[in-house]
């Protein structure tokens, strides 16, 4: 059974574009660093921790995802970057500079270099689309009206809203409003873009198009994007790396492929299961003979006819119980759950592992 050969046509396409992570082979530079940054709020006089000390580095040009349930502290973590929240202890460093105590003009300059978009868009309802996009430029001052007009036209073209410049936000759809939000966030040419649940209020189709726009901006402008979400699917589509937040702690951190294919923490497993539209974590297949294994393919391995070869060489038998073939950002991956039995099962497992496929036994 050579299921991967069905995808042989697509394999060539992926090889041509190169699906190795954008960051591999490049020299990375840290733009955002949390050094034991924590945050607690006072509730009735007693401090309640929202975020336990976090150490985290985000590299230039990467799309970094933070996933967690509501109340996990992801919104606080995101707001520490542009100091909408101040850390209770520890430091926040942007481009190597400690900005923890920045205020006045320094704080405003810092914020002008960090764009932000929001779940509920937060556009000024009393201003037109064009005036909303021009807003951060006018706040900064010292920029000529001609130049502002030029920049606004350019940004509206980038997000595909040139025809709507004179409309008010109330006349736009959710997806269009978020595009205005993105154009506004990019107006002052920031090097960092923060996304606060930017697609959570949008339908799946609009979500896809907004994520595509974000990925495109990341590629074209080399912008560092930090996004928070409670949907693993958002992480899977656009992020390079992800941090999983649970009760104010980073419980898992790694490349999206690693975290997605081999979730370690219980919270991560649940998020991945949700993204796979699975209920619970361990599938049970009573009556199916053999031992259960989960095979995770990544990149090239996804399209090689490995299983057919293993069956031919070792004479084992298998039942395919569940499977999924998809992409993590630009990397194809596959994950199969198999029941395998046969005398030379051990040899088969070694052959599969040697082919670069991760294999783990599933308890039943």
């Amino acid at each position, binding site marked *: 059974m050579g299921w991967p050969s069905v995808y042989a046509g697509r394999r060539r396409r992926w090889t041509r574009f190169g699906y190795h992570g954008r960051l591999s082979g490049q020299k990375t530079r840290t733009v955002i660093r949390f050094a034991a940054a924590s945050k607690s709020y006072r509730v009735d006089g007693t401090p309640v921790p929202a975020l336990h000390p976090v150490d985290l580095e985000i590299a230039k040009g990467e799309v970094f995802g933070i996933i967690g349930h509501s109340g996990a502290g992801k919104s606080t973590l995101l707001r520490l970057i542009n100091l*909408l929240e101040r850390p209770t202890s520890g430091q926040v460093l942007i481009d190597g500079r400690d900005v923890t105590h920045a205020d006045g003009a320094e704080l405003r300059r810092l*914020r*002008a270099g960090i764009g*932000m978009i929001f779940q*509920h868009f*937060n556009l000024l309802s009393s201003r037109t689309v064009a005036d909303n996009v021009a807003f951060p430029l006018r*706040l900064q001052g010292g920029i000529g009206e001609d130049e502002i007009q030029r920049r606004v036209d350019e940004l509206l073209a980038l997000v595909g809203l040139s025809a709507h410049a004179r409309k008010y936000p*109330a006349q736009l759809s959710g997806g269009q409003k978020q595009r205005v939000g993105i154009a506004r966030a990019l107006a002052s040419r920031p090097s960092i873009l923060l996304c606060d649940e930017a697609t959570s209020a949008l339908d799946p189709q609009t979500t896809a198009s907004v994520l595509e726009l974000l990925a495109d901006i990341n590629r074209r402008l080399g912008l560092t994007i930090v996004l928070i979400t409670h949907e693993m699917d958002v992480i899977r589509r656009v992020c390079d790396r992800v941090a999983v937040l649970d009760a104010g702690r980073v419980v898992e951190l790694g490349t999206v492929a690693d975290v997605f294919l081999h979730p370690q923490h219980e919270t991560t497993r649940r998020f991945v299961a949700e993204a796979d539209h699975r209920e619970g974590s361990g599938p049970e297949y009573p009556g199916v003979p053999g031992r259960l294994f989960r095979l995770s393919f990544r990149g090239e391995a996804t399209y090689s006819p490995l299983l057919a070869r293993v069956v031919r060489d070792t004479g084992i038998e298998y039942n395919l119980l569940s499977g999924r073939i998809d992409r993590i950002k630009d990397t194809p991956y596959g994950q199969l759950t198999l029941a395998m039995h046969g005398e030379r099962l051990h040899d088969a497992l070694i052959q599969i592992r040697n082919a670069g496929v991760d294999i783990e036994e599933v308890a039943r």
Partner: protein
Amino acid sequence: MNLMQTLFPNIDWPEIARACLDTLLMLGGSLLFTLALGLPLGIWLFLTARGQLHAQPKLYGVLSLVVNVLRSIPFIILMILLIPVTQVITGVSIGIRGAIVPLVIGAAPFFARLVETALREVDRGVIEASQSMGATTGQIVTRVLLPEARPGLIAATTVTAVALVGYTAMGGIVGAGGLGALAYQYGYNGYKPDYMLVTVALLVVLVQVLQMLGDRLVARYSRR
């Protein structure tokens, strides 16, 4: 003209016209000063409230108390209490100029509260977005809060203007002049029901016009 004579035998129409003008002058003058005083006070209340941009709970407590005290004194009492203050500020204690001081002191706290409420209606997310763009508090007030709350502020102005119409009529009792004074002096004390009817009708028309104007402006500036 015969019909008018039969229906309104006692009325001196030029006097009515003069009273109308007095009422409009008192209303215009006091509204102007009420807005000039109440708007900053309302913004101040908004900014210093707990959890807001410049939260100063103690200062807010004091401001709030002053506003509440001024709002709870019945206007007619306030007017009498303020006579010495009025004399210091305007040099007179009665007439149009004399009435404007108590009118403003009575209405400004009321308007300030309405301003505070209107500003609270502005989406917190929009304020946060402006902060994330590096806006100063001054910029947030002038470029975000006031424009975003414009319909609410216009509605607050309308309500205040209507309340001031009522206050000016009360002012008539202590010699401020205007339609209220006519209604009281001739209509009530002088047993001339036609005076009462005409002055009240004119006040109703005035309130109606103000409300209509306000509603139109609110509709024009609503973008939600």
